[in-house]
């Protein structure tokens, strides 16, 4: 049976060592770079004509913009639009990375927790920095609910702090686990097809897992979009706490 984990292997394309740190250019880095280049190329191309009545490419770019802008405005209000570039970049980057992973022989960057954790940590640190910069110590109100009797306040505060600290974990694990599990499932069903084909008369059953694999592929395309969306929505929600820590 083909190893379902093999698809996540990292290997060095250009080995590089800087001051004792291994900063080699890996296949993961290559796909990240590809995602960024594709995104930039697409948006440069799509916004070239700037027609009042958009063509096909321009329509897609405008839909993407309005989709994220609506999300940002809905959860953070008008002042949240300052974070639009941040949220938009995150959403598009994750979306393109997930989609590149759906292409056969592609590599799914977001199926490595180190990548998703870095993205989640970026959001977490941004929330902390923006929260303290904008509200000063008022930001700490986030941990002290207003209508709580004084004798349970210490415990509630502790619980709120733990809840706050758990955010980057659930934020990153959700994206990573979804992509990892989906791709492993896909590979396992693909493996079943090959195994059944090689098992004599059982080969007549081979179309069954093949059908499953096709169905799961469709599901995975949906998941790839949905997880990018969920990541962006949660980012908006957390950033909203930094802007309005009162509630």
């Amino acid at each position: 049976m083909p190893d379902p984990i093999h698809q996540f292997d990292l290997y060095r394309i250009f080995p590089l060592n800087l001051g004792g740190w291994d900063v080699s250019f890996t296949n993961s880095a290559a796909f990240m770079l590809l995602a960024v280049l594709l995104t930039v190329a697409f948006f440069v191309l799509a916004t070239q004509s700037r027609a009042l009545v958009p063509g096909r490419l321009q329509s897609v770019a405008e839909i993407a913009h309005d989709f994220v802008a609506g999300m940002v405005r809905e959860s953070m209000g008008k002042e949240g639009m300052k974070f639009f570039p941040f949220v938009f970049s995150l959403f598009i980057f994750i979306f393109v990375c997930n989609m590149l992973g759906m292409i056969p022989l592609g590599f799914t960057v977001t199926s490595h927790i180190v990548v998703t954790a870095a993205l989640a940590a970026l959001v977490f640190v941004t929330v902390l920095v923006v929260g303290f910069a904008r509200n000063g110590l008022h930001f700490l109100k986030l941990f002290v609910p207003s209508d709580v009797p004084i004798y349970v306040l210490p415990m509630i505060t502790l619980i709120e702090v733990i809840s706050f600290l758990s955010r980057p974990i659930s934020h990153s694990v959700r994206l990573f686990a979804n992509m990892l599990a989906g791709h492993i499932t896909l590979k396992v069903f693909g493996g079943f097809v090959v195994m059944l084909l090689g098992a004599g008369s059982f080969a007549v059953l081979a179309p069954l897992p093949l059908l499953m694999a096709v169905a799961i592929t469709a599901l995975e395309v949906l998941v790839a979009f949905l997880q990018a969306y969920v990541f962006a929505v949660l980012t908006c929600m957390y950033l909203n706490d930094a802007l309005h820590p009162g509630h």
Partner: protein
Amino acid sequence: MSPRERARFESRISELGEQLGKARSRREAELSVGADAEMRGRGMGYGMRMAAELVAAVIVGGVIGWSLDWVLGSRPWLFLLFFLLGFAAGVRNLMRMYERMQREFAARGGRIGQSAPDDD
């Protein structure tokens, strides 16, 4: 327009209206099936998110307790305490998420956690 022409015209109109009604109801049925599948997909997504939310908080609580124990040498008491606090924080996360979902659904004119009204 002669009376006969008028009668034909009217029967033609009612026929067209009937066809239009049929086409509309078919289209609506298709749409509601799509919405149902979408809701189920969403429900699955929400379930996964809730699980992650709960587990993450328990892990954070456990790790904090474990490290405090390690620093203060009070094993295993702080671990147990913070494990429970982590669980409480997880439930808090779930409650918050539920409220948010409720608002989202309400904005779209639906409700969760409530079955369809039945006859009896």
